[in-house]
């Protein structure tokens, strides 16, 4: 019996890990691993395989912005309707309903400073039901999705230790 959580954690950290390697690590057959991953996809547990990229090391000038949005929930629809109006924009990479001082958290990637400003002032703020917005820009990424953006440590252990 495959431990699904263990399997998911492994592919979460390394989407390119080979099926045959997973089979050995989890003491299962390649067929069983494939079937389990397929089942996870069908059940929408696995939604995709992304690559962690440190964009700061490339020539791209885009920024990442976190936008806190306070909204009025709508009758029969709660927050879902208005959230859907936000998350359909491709530049919204994440959209969360939050507890606390505001309601929705939008994460905008792939945009320049001006594009974010325009997006907030033209698309978000004027929408009916939006009470206020507050936009924060990420200055530097130290760690994201469990991955460190700084240099990895080298192995400084002695070659042989009994």
């Amino acid at each position, binding site marked *: 019996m495959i431990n699904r959580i263990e399997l998911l954690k492994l592919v979460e950290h390394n989407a390119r890990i080979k099926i045959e390697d997973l089979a050995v690590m989890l003491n299962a057959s390649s067929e069983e691993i494939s079937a389990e991953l397929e089942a996870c996809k069908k059940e929408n547990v696995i939604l995709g395989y992304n690559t962690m990229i440190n964009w700061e090391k490339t020539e791209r000038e885009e920024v990442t912005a976190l936008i806190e949005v306070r909204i009025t929930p709508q009758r029969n629809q709660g927050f879902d309707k208005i959230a859907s109006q936000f998350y359909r924009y491709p530049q919204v990479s994440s959209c969360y309903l939050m507890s606390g001082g505001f309601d929705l958290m939008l994460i905008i990637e792939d945009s320049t400073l001006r594009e974010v400003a325009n997006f907030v002032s033209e698309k978000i703020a004027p929408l009916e039901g939006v009470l206020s917005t507050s936009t924060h820009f990420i200055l530097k990424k130290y760690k994201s999705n469990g991955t460190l953006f700084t240099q990895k440590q080298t192995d400084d252990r002695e*070659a042989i230790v009994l």
Partner: protein
Amino acid sequence: MEIDYQSKISTVVNNIAPSAIRRFFDLANEMKEEVISLSIGEPDFVTPWSIREAGIFSLEDGYTHYSPNQGYIEVRKAISEYLERRFDLKYDPKKQLLVTVGGSEALDLIARALINPGDEVIILEPCFVAYKATVTLAHGVPVVIETKEEDEYKLKPEALEAAITDKTKYIILGYPGNPTGATMTKEDLSKIKDILVRHPDIFVVSDELYSELSYTGEKPASIANFPELYDRTIVVNGFSKSFAMTGWRIGYMAGPAPLIAAMNKVHQYCIMSSPTTAQYAVIEACRNGDKDVEEMRDEYNRRRRVIINGLKEAGLSCFDPTGAFYAFPSIEGLGLTCEEFCERFLMEKKVAIVPGSAFGKCGEGHVRISYAASMENIQEAMRRLKEFVTELKNGSKE
């Protein structure tokens, strides 16, 4: 006039044989930059952050003094709670626990506090290199039982019975074991207990440094769990292996109060007290470290399976190790001694592993492969091992 230094060194130290494979070690360490090393007996993980942070915080708060000889009472309480929670072992933190500089100091204290010259100590080879030396340095006589691959390196009751004499002072059990990765189940230990019950003068030193790293799926068993032996067992444990804290140099022993008092006497004159920073760090390890240990254990277990599979594909026979982070495959039939095998593997394929003979004469014919290394390195090393063994087999046919 030239001084003959050798003659000034005590006989007992002079008589400890220098490591026969020292030259190989030097070679491997010189080549360190270019080799994949599966030869290391310490975790590749860095100490979990919350534990490091607890040590740092104690420094910031100015805890930089000697601790009480036996260790801070808060540390002993934390260890006592941990031992009960994880291993069903009950020890009074006031009288039955001593915080040491790693498990190694504990082994040395035991030897010096218990052995009279000529007393015999039973050790099971292949084993951790310090067992024999600590006994010899304390003027004891190590009596070696050779454990075997076909017995999964477990101690057989018959072998124990045969090794016992009226001079036997104690026996050192090291399970899960270095270098074999062997474990002993409660059932296995029960048979050993039956023998020891008939020999009420013999003590047991149970080295349980690797107790958290057991992959049988069952709770690791300690011989101290048997009420018949509780009063005659000294449990040696520490944080180096299970919590990835080798460099902090901190361990402990637990046992009968009068013995702990005797050990503490030796400890206070040669060590004074264990490092204060490390003591503050292990309070955090004992109380909040379970999840970190579990994650490391799961990762070791996956690597273990990759190693076992790699050995199988390379055509080397190896019993399934169930603990620690070592595999101990046989290289017999390839026409090389274990030392030759390791040296050629290092020179030709740039992978460092350890000859079995480093762990006792009966380790010949085997090599120790540590999986305290990254998965990528293990996979690459296993690929090279397969290549190497295939070349050896083809070569020997020609």
